[in-house]
């Protein structure tokens, strides 16, 4: 009792309970500070900027929602968003290819390691360098044209890969397939590796073909990672920036949403408007992700969980059967 009245700081700070809390706080402090200073603080600032008419240097003027109104009334912002369709299309091809190679390479293949290495390598090259590589790749009479000429094409019949507005978006989006396919593949291989090998054996004994194995064993086991990759690819497609910025500079109709945003912020110094564009894109991406998640949950389920659709179907079936039973009982 005597001790309670007489507060002993040393004893208090040494007590296990306080020590535990102190430990937690000190360990959390560094990462949380970093997270706050470099992620949430700039983000909060950007949201703040979006309500101002401002340049990088100089006075700013509060304009409320005017910037947001402009984002929705300008015709170039949302037209640029349409270009994301090219990149979304590319991401589907990219995932399909990655899945194909991953299924092949996760079994014993001659030279499998080398192939994995080769296909993963582009991901290690920095995006800007990839841009330069493809600028030369598509240059008239350079790599692509030469290869096509070997295949018997005439140079005069070949299009200008980056100038022709009908195909230049395909050319640019194709570079992201080249770059990210390997990375997706490695993720898929990792997931496929975790599948119990005895399942394949059992399937082989039952006479399952390669496609059957993929359809009934591999695909259901790596569903989660496929969904994750799809979501990442689609959100990535909405914010495509590096390929068009480096390869074409956003000219000849290849300016994606981010490229337009960058132009407004750095060339016309409309920082407020560009910030508003960023916030709008963030909301779009959030909505898109949410929709995708709901979609996949409904059709494929998540992790160990069953798809909502299957559950519903089963319940319906059960209900029907019960009804039948009941009816049958009566009849």
């Amino acid at each position, binding site marked *: 009792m005597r001790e309670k009245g007489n507060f002993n700081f040393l004893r208090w700070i040494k007590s296990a309970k306080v020590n535990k809390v102190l430990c937690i706080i000190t360990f959390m402090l560094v990462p949380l500070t970093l997270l706050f200073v470099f992620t949430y603080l700039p983000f909060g600032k950007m949201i703040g900027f979006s309500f101002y008419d401002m*340049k*990088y*240097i*100089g006075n700013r003027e509060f304009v409320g929602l005017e910037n947001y109104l402009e984002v929705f009334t300008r015709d170039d912002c949302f037209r640029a968003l349409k270009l994301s369709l090219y990149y979304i299309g590319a991401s589907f091809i990219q995932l399909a290819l990655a899945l194909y190679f991953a299924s092949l390479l996760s079994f014993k293949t001659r030279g499998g390691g080398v192939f994995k290495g080769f296909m993963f390598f582009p991901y290690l090259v920095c995006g800007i360098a990839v841009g330069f590589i493809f*600028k*030369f790749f*598509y*240059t*008239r009479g*350079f790599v692509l044209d030469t290869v096509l000429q070997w295949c018997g094409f005439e140079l005069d019949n070949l299009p*200008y890969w*980056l*100038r022709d*507005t009908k195909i*230049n978006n395909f050319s640019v989006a194709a570079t992201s397939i080249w770059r990210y396919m390997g990375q997706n593949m490695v993720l898929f291989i990792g997931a496929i590796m975790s599948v119990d090998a005895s399942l394949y054996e059992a399937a082989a004994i039952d006479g399952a073909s390669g496609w059957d194995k993929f359809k009934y064993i591999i695909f259901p086991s790596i569903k989660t990672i496929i969904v994750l990759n799809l979501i990442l690819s689609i959100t990535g497609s909405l914010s495509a920036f590096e390929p068009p910025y480096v390869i*074409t*500079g956003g*000219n*000849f109709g290849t300016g994606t949403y981010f490229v337009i945003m960058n*132009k*407004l912020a*750095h*060339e*016309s*110094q*409309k920082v407020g408007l560009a910030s508003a564009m960023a916030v709008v894109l963030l909301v779009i991406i959030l909505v898109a992700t949410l929709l995708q998640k709901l979609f996949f949950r409904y059709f494929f389920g998540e992790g160990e969980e069953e798809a909502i659709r299957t559950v519903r179907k089963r319940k319906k079936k059960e209900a029907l059967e019960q009804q039948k039973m009941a009816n049958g009982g009566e009849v």
Partner: protein
Amino acid sequence: MRKNFKRFLAMALTGAMTLSLAACGSKDEGKKEEKKDEEFTLTLDQIKLGEDHTNVKADLKFLTHKTDRVDNKFQEYIKEFQKLYPNVNIEYEGITDYANDITTRLTTGDWGDICMVPTTVDKDELENYFVSFGDKSQLGSVYDARFLNNFAYSDKVYGMPSMVNVQGIVYNKKVFDEAGVTTLPKTPDEFLEALKKIKDNTKVAAPLYTNFAADWTMNAWDAYIAGNATGDADFMHEGLTKGKNPFSDRGDQTGPYAVYNTLYEAVKRGLTEEDPTTTDWEGSKGMINRGEIGCMVLGSWSIPQMKESGDNPDDIAYMPFPITVNGKQYAAAGPDYCYGINVNSSNDQKTAAMCYIKWLIEKSDFAEFEGGITAVSGAKLPDALSSFESIDLVVDNAAPAGEETLFNDVNNDSELGINASGAIPKEVLEAATKGDKTMKDMVKEWNEKWTTAQEKHDIKHE
């Protein structure tokens, strides 16, 4: 024993940390006070090089866009300068994407001592970032006052031009001779005809090379719409910033329309490179040197680079832009990047920086070496610009007090990016290549955007 030692160590560490924190704080305070005490009053015209301030001790950091000169030419300059000022150390930092990066660097305040002032700083903000070199009237006794306007605000000059560019066209003389172009073209029509001759009579595939993919090279076209195309030193302010529909066709092959239309027609008639999206800037220098390109529309700074990049430096020449106003040809001249001194540097650093900048402008061969002229009054034209002797140089007049930022404001709000992003020339080239828009459509569009921006800043037309 052990426990005690650990405890002691912990205490000592905490103590040291707290102390060092406190030390940091007090140091900063001291610095700030010192700044307030002594005001910096030195001006550039007062300094006598090699006589004044020769004992000044300072370490300077110099941010520059000339990344290719940092390790060679600039080191020679430092050595020469240290003969006069032995206690001044200068460290150059080359920035590749200078125009974009420097704005961000400036906002931090702690970027170095000397930099090339970016155009993104509005005039009324200059004093918050840079030291004044003196009053314009005072400096005008030594330097050509027309070149001091770019970064002058209420008569104080915050940026000294490293050199003055003359705007014309860099071309390969041999190619023009071979094509049978004997006299230099003086109007857009003559110019297009000359390009046609090159296309027909020589093997040159691109009589005019736009370097579209490099982006900033298109921006260069904007520099010709004022002085070169009108001969009017007030055009930038009166004609463009405040004028009504400045992009309209004037009908006499002058004005902004004539410049952009020249580009449009050249592209449309196939007188430029086949595929503009894959041009290569570094490669183009060698191509013009070897005679594979006829000409390029770039400032006089480009001359030395074209000469250096091949075996035929003598074939490279420079001609005025082919626009004639009332029987006379003009060439716009304007400061290149200007030197600026950090307002947050110490007084010694500021003094040393002033001396070095004065030395660079007056004593070094920087301007001539880079294809320009110096800002010193009555400077002679270098040999490379011999075809400009009979031509009047036009230097844009400063906007009147109170309207200094007007051009930037209208330009930014219109998103036409004149002298900033090259949005207009890029659009012209795209339209001419795709053939989907005529000059008429585009001019209407530009005028509308420009007028809307003008209205936002209370510019009215009767």
